[in-house]
């Protein structure tokens, strides 16, 4: 930072220019900041206790004593300035205030509706400034917040993403509300170029968030994009960086060896497991090893040949082929150029950004062009017109999704080959047995084989997105202190998907063949030759209009009041559709008609009788909200602040009585800046403030309705008629979720900010939370995935925790050391759950689904009690009524009290620890992320799915094989037939639960500043490493606690970049 401003009370320039008004004691003047911007809301006090406050143009008038007087200019974030004046004054005073270099106090908190200096804030906020955002190098803004704020990132597969202060809801939308430039943002987060972001404010407590009403219960992220400033010299900023990422570690997931897998296949084959498949005229997939064994059994293969060929398969490892042919190193490029500046009545910012990311999966990539233009004009003195235009155009090429490279409904067997020794594409089993495909149709059908490597290069799947954001606002100073604001935003996001399967692709060939009928010498093809074109379109239009009155005043030095009242109306409409065209020719753009009406017998009745698949689908959604809100902040004597806010939201929630559509939400808060008390004398703590707030915010699950609703679909499979399905069982008692939050915190800073920080304690009670309960299946009520469950307001929850950020900063000669510790502690307990099950099994899982038990966290890990392995058989033993038992069914359906509770599935403690070292032109910054106090369940071998779906796991090699093994392993023996409940019991048992605690070296940034540090021209060069690795973990398995059920840890990314400012 700039070291030249560390002294107090520097008067850069106070200019006296002659006498202005004879015979009056009124002094007029204007205040500007050191970057020549007008400074509003500055309090001016004369020695005679007259006070004034500057208006938005920085102008003020104040009465002074005749003769000598001194004016004191005081504004948060600026050094206090004392200016001696002598009456009469010849010209208007021109006062220049110097910004304090202190980051902590400079902050103006922006909630999206209003901005207040930090000193007057009663709520809990966190601001991530531009430097911190730009410390990371990713193309997604959200990723840059990881480790930079007390926002928790849930990286587990199937988890919900980010949360602020722990989970506040059970089944309703758990995501924080995102506000961009003052308006809720409906588009995809990835449309925002992080280089365009000025800061992100995290609103955490009720006083902060309740102004946003419904959905603020999960916290709010307020994103402010870069704007020009009035009276700012034109400035050009250019950023460019390159990121290189290594291939994913395919050997991370514990897999069975080819040898072990084939041993199982041999054993199952000997026991006749495959007989029915081998004899099945619908020709289900048979693995190569089983084909060889079958050929040997029927005498078509000698024993020697069998051994030789099985031996050859044993040596193969599909991960080698995957790594060689499907993965590559990722390479991302990012460029951003921005030009901004301003005159006295006009400012502007123009940015353009280009991102091009080459994924680590071959032929997958994405690119993004962003344009942002922000202009503010003051056509007349009291009027400010703001106009913001954002445009993002992206292309996402997704030719390969990795799980699709495997037989339908199965995992890839470990000895699969994707290419032969010469690199030619190999045939892989997909839908049917290869031996059948060899002879199907006697050559009259199209080739029916699947070769993943060829598919990789024929695939043609991409989506283009366009996002347009027009945000216009006016601010008009109606009378002194009263300002009218109106704002309108139009946001359009359009995503068009296009997937073209040429006739050569397996998808097209398979569908053509499936419906083909050979009659005599002709082939009848209801699905015509040619390609298949799938198009999808998804258009989201969101409009927000707002009108608001702001009243800002202060009187008698001691009182200042900021108040807003406003109304907002908002509509989000989503229109999407999918279509398919058969017989499509990409060269001439012609296509063929097909008969969707009649039912055709599929080839050999492999798939029974079917209509031609028509994935056409149309959706239209429309959400509307009408809101009224108000917020008032009052400060007395600069140190006592009070705030209140209230808001009422109403929406077009389906089938809810009009009065229940709306919900009033409110908050109140107070703060006290102790260090401003005259009696405050501490030599150690320079700045001390306490805060307190309480309030209510809300949340809603839009998928629910008070009325029984059904949804419509086309083409019932048997009759071909339109049909409807029950979507939502009616619930006349449906209510909004409410979240009560109590927050108390302190902010402090030691002398010279060596140590500073904020600590917040919060309590939150969630009432009427929407949850899902098991319901007597006899009622016939199902949820949207066909489980006999019912959703409603079933739970109450209580949470508490601590949020803290501690900063240390010290300069020793040219070396500046600074550290930031972010600490989050968050606990929640379900206090009432009206829908708890008296069966144990629903509670046992991976902790990614919610199955609350009263008194326990929403996300918890429960297990079946483990009583070892049966020494005679290697069967897992559980406990039933105090006895070791193999009655798995009874164990799983006994009372939930019999379960072992391990703990939270979400870290109870989390945060980051960032250290910066600056030495002359060099700086190094390293960030550690820690997650502590939680558990996870790892996967192990499941014989049922191993046999049926080839889901394999290396624990197989540690299984119980002979008496005595129970002393050295807990992996159950292989039994045939597999017993589903035995596998489920083992998968849910306590032996597979691990501690999740770990510390991760998240990233490292090394930068060098070239050019003259004092001048405006700056060149910044940096090296950035991300996902460096785990440096400590509590569990002894080789698992990364964030990636334990199928995912692969993010690979190391190395970036180099430069940022220049001219």
């Amino acid at each position: 930072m700039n070291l030249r401003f560390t002294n107090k009370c520097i008067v850069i320039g106070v200019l006296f220019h002659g006498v202005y008004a004879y015979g009056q004691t009124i002094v007029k003047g204007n205040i500007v900041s050191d970057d020549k911007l007008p400074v509003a809301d500055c309090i001016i006090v004369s020695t005679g206790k007259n006070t004034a406050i500057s208006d938005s143009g920085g102008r003020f008038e104040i009465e002074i004593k005749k003769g000598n007087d001194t004016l004191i200019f005081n504004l948060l974030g600026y050094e206090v300035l004392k200016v001696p004046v002598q009456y009469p004054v010849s010209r208007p005073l021109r006062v220049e205030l110097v910004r304090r270099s202190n980051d902590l106090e400079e902050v103006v908190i922006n909630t999206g509706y209003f901005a207040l200096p930090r000193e007057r804030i009663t709520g809990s906020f966190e601001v991530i400034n531009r430097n911190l955002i730009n410390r990371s190098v990713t193309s997604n803004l959200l990723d840059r917040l990881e480790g930079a704020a007390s926002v928790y990132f849930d990286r587990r597969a199937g988890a919900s993403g980010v949360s602020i202060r722990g989970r506040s809801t059970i089944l309703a939308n758990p995501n924080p509300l995102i506000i961009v430039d003052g308006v809720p943002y409906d588009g995809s987060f990835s449309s925002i170029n992080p280089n365009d972001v000025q800061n992100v404010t995290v609103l955490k407590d009720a006083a902060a968030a309740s102004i946003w009403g419904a959905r603020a219960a999960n916290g709010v992220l307020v994103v402010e994009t870069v704007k020009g400033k009035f009276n700012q010299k034109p400035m050009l900023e250019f950023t460019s960086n390159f990121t290189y990422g290594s291939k994913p570690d395919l050997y991370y997931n514990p897999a069975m060896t080819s040898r072990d897998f084939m041993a199982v296949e041999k054993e199952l084959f000997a026991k006749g497991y495959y007989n029915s498949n081998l004899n099945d005229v619908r020709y289900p997939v048979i693995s190569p090893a089983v084909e060889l064994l079958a050929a040997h059994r029927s005498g078509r293969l000698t024993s020697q040949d069998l051994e030789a060929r099985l031996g050859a398969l044993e040596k193969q490892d599909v991960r080698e082929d995957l790594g060689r042919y499907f993965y590559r190193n990722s390479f991302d490029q990012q460029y951003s150029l921005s030009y901004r500046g301003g005159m006295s009545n006009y400012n502007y910012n123009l940015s353009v950004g280009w991102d091009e990311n080459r994924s680590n999966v071959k032929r997958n990539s994405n690119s993004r062009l962003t344009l942002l233009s922000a202009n503010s004009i003051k056509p007349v003195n009291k009027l400010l017109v703001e106009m913001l235009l954002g445009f993002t155009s992206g292309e996402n090429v997704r030719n390969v999704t990795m799980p699709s490279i495997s037989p339908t409904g199965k995992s890839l067997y470990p000895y699969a080959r994707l290419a032969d020794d010469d690199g030619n594409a190999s045939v892989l089993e997909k839908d049917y047995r290869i031996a059948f495909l060899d002879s199907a149709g006697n050559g009259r059908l199209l080739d029916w084989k699947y070769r993943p490597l060829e598919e990789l290069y024929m695939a043609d799947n991409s989506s283009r997105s366009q996002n347009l954001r027009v945000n216009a606002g006016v601010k008009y100073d109606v009378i002194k202190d009263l300002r009218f604001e109106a704002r309108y935003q139009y946001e359009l996001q359009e995503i068009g998907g296009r997937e073209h399967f040429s006739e050569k692709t397996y998808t097209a060939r398979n569908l053509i063949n499936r419906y083909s009928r050979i009659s005599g010498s002709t082939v009848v093809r209801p699905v015509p030759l040619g390609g298949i074109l799938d198009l999808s379109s998804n258009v989201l239009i969101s409009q927000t209009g707002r009108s608001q009155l702001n009243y800002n005043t202060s009187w008698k030095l001691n009182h200042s009041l900021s108040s807003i009242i406003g109304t907002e109306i908002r509509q989000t409409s989503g229109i999407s559709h999918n279509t398919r065209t058969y017989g499509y020719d990409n060269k001439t753009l012609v296509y063929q008609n097909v008969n969707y009406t009649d039912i055709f017998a599929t080839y050999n009745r492999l798939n029974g009788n079917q209509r031609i698949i028509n994935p056409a689908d149309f959706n239209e959604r429309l959400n509307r909200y009408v809101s009224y809100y108000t917020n008032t902040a009052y400060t007395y004597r600069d140190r006592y602040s009070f705030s209140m806010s209230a808001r009422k939201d109403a929406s077009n929630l389906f089938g809810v009585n009009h009065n229940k559509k709306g919900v009033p939400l409110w908050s109140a808060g107070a703060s006290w800046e102790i260090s401003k008390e005259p009696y405050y004398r501490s030599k150690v703590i320079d700045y001390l403030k306490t805060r307190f707030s309480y309030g209510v915010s809300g949340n809603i699950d839009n998928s629910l309705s008070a009325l029984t609703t059904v949804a419509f679909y086309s083409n019932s499979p048997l009759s071909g008629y339109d049909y409807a399905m029950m979507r939502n069982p009616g619930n006349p008692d449906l209510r909004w979720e409410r979240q009560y939050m109590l927050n108390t915190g302190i902010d402090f800073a030691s002398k010279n900010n060596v140590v500073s920080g904020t600590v917040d304690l919060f309590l939150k009670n969630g009432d009427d939370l929407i949850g899902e309960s098991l319901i007597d299946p006899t009622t016939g009520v199902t949820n949207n995935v066909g489980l006999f469950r019912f959703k409603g307001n079933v739970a109450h929850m209580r949470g508490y925790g601590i949020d803290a950020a501690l900063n240390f900063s010290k300069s020793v000669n040219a070396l500046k050391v600074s550290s930031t510790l972010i600490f989050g502690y968050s606990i929640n307990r379900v206090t009432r759950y009206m829908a708890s099950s008296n069966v144990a099994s629903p509670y046992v899982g991976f902790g990614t689904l919610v199955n609350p038990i009263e008194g326990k966290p929403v996300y918890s890990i429960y297990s079946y009690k483990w009583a070892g392995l049966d020494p005679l058989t290697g069967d897992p033993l559980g406990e039933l009524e105090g006895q070791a038992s193999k009655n798995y069914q009874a164990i799983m359906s006994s009372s939930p009290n019999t379960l072992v509770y391990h703990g939270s599935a979400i870290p109870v403690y989390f945060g980051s620890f960032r250290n910066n070292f600056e030495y002359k032109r060099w700086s190094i910054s390293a960030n550690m992320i820690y997650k502590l106090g939680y558990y996870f369940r790892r996967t192990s071998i499941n014989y049922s799915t191993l046999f049926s779906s080839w889901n394999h796991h290396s624990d197989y090699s540690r299984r119980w094989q002979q008496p005595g093994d129970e002393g050295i392993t807990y992996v159950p023996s292989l039994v045939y037939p597999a017993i589903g409940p035995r596998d489920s019991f083992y998968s849910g048992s306590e032996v597979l639960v691990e501690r999740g605690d770990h510390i991760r070296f998240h990233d490292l940034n090394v930068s060098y500043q070239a050019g003259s540090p004092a001048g405006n021209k700056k060149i910044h060069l940096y090296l950035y490493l991300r996902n460096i690795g785990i440096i400590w973990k509590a569990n002894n398995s080789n698992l990364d606690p964030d990636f334990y059920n199928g995912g692969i840890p993010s690979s190391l990314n190395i970036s180099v970049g430069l940022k220049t400012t001219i």
Partner: protein
Amino acid sequence: MKTNVIILFFALIFINFSCKDYLDIKPDKKLVVLSTTAEAQALLNNILFNTAYPASGEIASDHYYVKDTDWLSVRALSERNAYIWAKDVFNESPRNDWSLTYEKVYNANLVIDAIKEGKIEGSLQDRNHVLGQALFFRAYSFYQVLQLFAKPWDSKLSASDPGIPLRLSSDFNRPSKRETVARSYQQIIEDLLTASELLESNTPTNVRPAKQAAYALLSRIYLLTEDYEKAVEYSDKTLKMGDNLMDYSTINPNQQFSFSQNNVEVIWLSIMNLPQILNSPILKVDPAFIRSYTENDLRPQLFYTLNTVDSTYAFKGSYFGLNILFNGLSVNEIYFIKAESLARLGKLSDARDVLNRLLSKRYPPDTFQPVVSPDKTELLARILDERGKELVFRGLRWTDLRRLNKEDEFKRVIKRRINAQEYILNPNDNAYVFQIPEEVIQLSGIEQNNR
């Protein structure tokens, strides 16, 4: 200007206040609260009402076997256990024969409630058609659950034997409670009688039940509740609306599947869910059963197909036309209901006529020998024998075994052998009533069946 701005502000507020309709719009166009007969009909077009009916009774019935190795290779424990009449069935998955059938009841009740509460707009005729279908589906579902989870009909005991929960409203807050077997059948009959009044005479597709379907199901229910006069009455009503039989001699026996789902005998189309154990090539038709068909009988070659690899027989005679098993209503079943009922009522010559009319379509015309049996028991035995040979893998066998076990002449002992262990199902064994899923017992507190 100043005042104008303030007026503008308040004007904007009033715009918000004044547009109550603004919030009355549906958030999702696809979502509908049932309010017209077309919408109610759409709900009844859901294939839920035609598919996934219970197959466990069929698994536990005779006329087929599975090899040891194949039995072991069956993935679902429930299927393996149902085959050997073990106790633990339906506990693997929450979607089982109990819950899936009650899901149909709930969906039918949505329509029934909406009509009864006057929420459905449309002509009286349309409302009747919709209500008739819903009542039919509910009755059919109750019938299915009764066959698995309650004791068979007994004129003396059914008034006290525990039946099934009769959920007659879509209000899921009402607790489930088991009614008696007699009350359960009474409800089914009431629903069907009402439905038969309301339903259309003709529907555009056999997927949608018409009057004839209600009559056919009534005759099935009257037969198994031993009300033979009513059974004759309703089989007559059924046949009056269509009594065409396929002439099996005109059907090509060399097709992969012999029949089509639109064949003339189908009154109403429905299918069972397809357990792995009942699917070829695991299901092997009992060779002794196939040998019991007479020489010229056309049915074996249309129903069964020889797998030359292991010389076993698979079933290819589903009236659905695929390997999926048909369990709906068809004209041939009604002939058997009528013949059996007539025989039991002593109207032997009428019974013979009905039987012969059917059998004449099952033999080449030149080889057909009419049944002439003059003795009641012998004729009844022949009718039941032919019934068994005709209505194979239709979900009817389990019900037939249960009801015929009450008669010494017809009761059967079924044996299975798996891995050298023999399993025996004696007549009237407790295993003829399945255990209700444990989860249902836990969540509803209803009474479990004895085992």
